[in-house]
């Protein structure tokens, strides 16, 4: 599932010493063969996953991929049909939700509307029989952590969306859970607030040292916050790795297209080896070159994924048009303006459309490549990601 040995990714996590690379490291949370069916539909199909102490792990997937079901199984709100969950050496089978050292930040926040902010945060402590004075102290500590001091007596209805998210987080952390589960915690917030909350979640996670497992469909959220992420597809884990690994070295067409944008070409492996791969394509009158060995032997059909930002675009008559191991000619059909970058839609001579993004380095009026220009798209072998069909 993770990247093949020897394909080290330079983007190492700055915050974390990557225990998943150490075969001797003991996982904090082990998910073994977890399967869950609803009727005849397998929401989860034999999930195996190890998560380490202090990690910020993101489960990323579309709706119906099973990510929320997996989170609910970790919380004890759902029971797996097969497989087991071991947390800190303790098998969670038969441990009901209320007895697990696991707390959850719900997607709707699920704050108790009839209780004040302080009562909400203290709820778990009260259930555990924590003395009143100690609970009050812990509530104050939690409010300071999420920077919501002075809101003790408010009701949830009198809070904004961002404030509710903070209180929900404070409530989930109040009992010092071994594992904090976050179910799409920021999906209800607008973009700017979401970004600032992402940084805050990260910093709170670092300060408390709690192991976080977050479910999200927002790839940007997963990429910026997580130490590692697992891409889920129809009840299975399509790929697990650091954000850099999964983005730079996707192991399937699904991951390549789910995370970021990818142009997908198809072809047949002609030769492959440690020095690189040559892929023949009936569609283009050229071979596609890649630096990496192919996942399949010569003769197999494969996909080549190309990230738009790894492609260069130049007018045919420009000097730069001669660079690059791979070259395809075409015509600009469409330019989408995103502010910070342009996305060119280039129609190749064969009729296929490639998306090529270019950073917005100059003003629009001085754009070097314009509508209907004859262009050459070039890229290095490093940018060709060869994926099994």
């Amino acid at each position, binding site marked *: 599932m993770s990247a093949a040995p020897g394909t080290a990714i330079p983007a190492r996590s700055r915050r974390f010493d990557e225990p998943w690379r150490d075969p001797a490291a003991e996982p904090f949370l082990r998910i073994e063969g977890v399967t869950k069916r609803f009727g005849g539909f397998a929401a989860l199909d034999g999930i195996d996953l190890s998560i380490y102490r202090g990690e910020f792990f993101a489960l990323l997937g579309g709706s119906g991929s099973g990510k929320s079901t997996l989170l609910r199984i970790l919380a004890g709100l759902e029971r797996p049909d097969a497989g087991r969950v071991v947390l800190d050496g303790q098998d969670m089978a038969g441990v009901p939700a209320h007895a697990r050292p696991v707390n959850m930040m719900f*997607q709707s926040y699920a704050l108790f509307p009839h209780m004040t902010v302080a009562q909400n945060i203290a709820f778990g402590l009260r259930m555990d029989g924590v003395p009143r004075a100690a609970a009050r102290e812990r509530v104050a500590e939690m409010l300071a952590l999420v920077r919501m001091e002075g809101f003790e007596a408010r009701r949830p209805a009198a809070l904004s969306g961002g404030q509710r998210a903070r209180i929900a987080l404070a409530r989930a952390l109040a009992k010092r859970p071994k594992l904090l589960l976050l179910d799409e915690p920021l999906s209800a917030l607008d973009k700017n607030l979401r970004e600032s909350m992402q940084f805050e979640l990260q910093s709170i996670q670092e300060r408390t040292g709690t192991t976080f497992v977050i479910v999200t469909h927002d790839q940007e959220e997963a990429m910026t916050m997580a130490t590692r992420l697992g891409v889920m597809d129809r009840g299975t884990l399509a790929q697990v790795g650091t954000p850099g690994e999964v983005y730079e070295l996707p192991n399937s067409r699904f991951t390549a297209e789910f995370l970021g944008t990818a142009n997908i070409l198809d072809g047949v492996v002609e030769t492959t080896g440690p020095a690189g791969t040559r892929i023949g394509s009936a569609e283009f009158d050229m071979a596609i070159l890649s630096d990496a060995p192919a996942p399949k032997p010569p003769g197999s059909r494969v996909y080549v994924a190309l990230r738009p930002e790894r492609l260069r675009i130049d007018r045919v008559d420009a000097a730069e048009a001669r660079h690059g191991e791979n070259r395809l000619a075409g015509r600009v059909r469409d330019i989408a303006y995103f502010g910070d970058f342009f996305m060119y839609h280039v129609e190749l001579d064969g009729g296929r459309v490639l998306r090529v993004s270019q950073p917005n380095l100059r003003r629009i009026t001085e754009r070097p490549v314009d509508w209907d220009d004859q262009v050459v798209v070039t890229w290095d072998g490093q940018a060709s990601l060869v994926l099994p069909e």
Partner: protein
Amino acid sequence: MTPRLRRALVLALPAAWMLLFFAAPFAIVLSIGFAEPAEGIPPYAPLLRRGEDGALQLQLNMANLQLLLEDPFYAEAALRSLRVAAVSATLCLLVGYPMALAIARAPEGWRNTLLMLVVLPFWTSFLLRVTAWIGLLQDQGWINGALLALGLIEDPLRLLYTDLAMYLGITYCYLPFMVLPLYASLSRLDPALLEAAADLGARPWRGFLAVTLPLSLPGVVAGYLLVFIPAVGEFVIPELLGGPGAQLIGRVLWTEFFQNRDWPLASALAVVLLLLLVLPIALFQSRATRDAER
């Protein structure tokens, strides 16, 4: 048509309804309550009469109210009725709450069917249903018959014409009025709240007490009032199923109206009863509204 005029027209219909079917009859009953009984039809003297000097005089007779306050018979009947209503509403709550909760948590496709079953008895006559209980409860009835046949008892139990039979009847007849508002408030409850309670360490029972119960209180209050208010004046069920013992206020009203033909006293009693019920509820409502706004 100006918006103001349109709004006035929209409000006119319910206002006319209330005036015609509540305010006017209440005013008539109130006025009879202050009249003097008289022989004839109707059996009371008009309030406005020509005095000896020929001038129009308003004569309010306070004797009815005075009698109601002085004769403990009426106060006792009223208290007894309040107690019967309170016990019945409490029984309805105890039976209805688990029912409403079960319906609210039933699979989506089942809920409407279950609600239909709750309302189904309304499709037969009220009198018929109460009479059916006689068939069940009497000495040769089905319940005694079954117990005798099983050999659990040797002589029939006295079930009919007891307080037990009366409470059974009232609880049975008024149960839907409790279940429906309870269901309405329970089905609106976000299931994630209960999951959050469990996640934070609440066992199912504590989760119910800390989350479900307090958040369903509006439904509890609505259902309780819907049962309590009509049960206070309930006349038919205690009459058909209840014992011969002390009288309830509904029975007293009936006797004063139809047997004694003392319309003024009966009207005064009706007005006092209404005020006794309306004033505390109105107070409670205004308090609840203030709380909700805060």
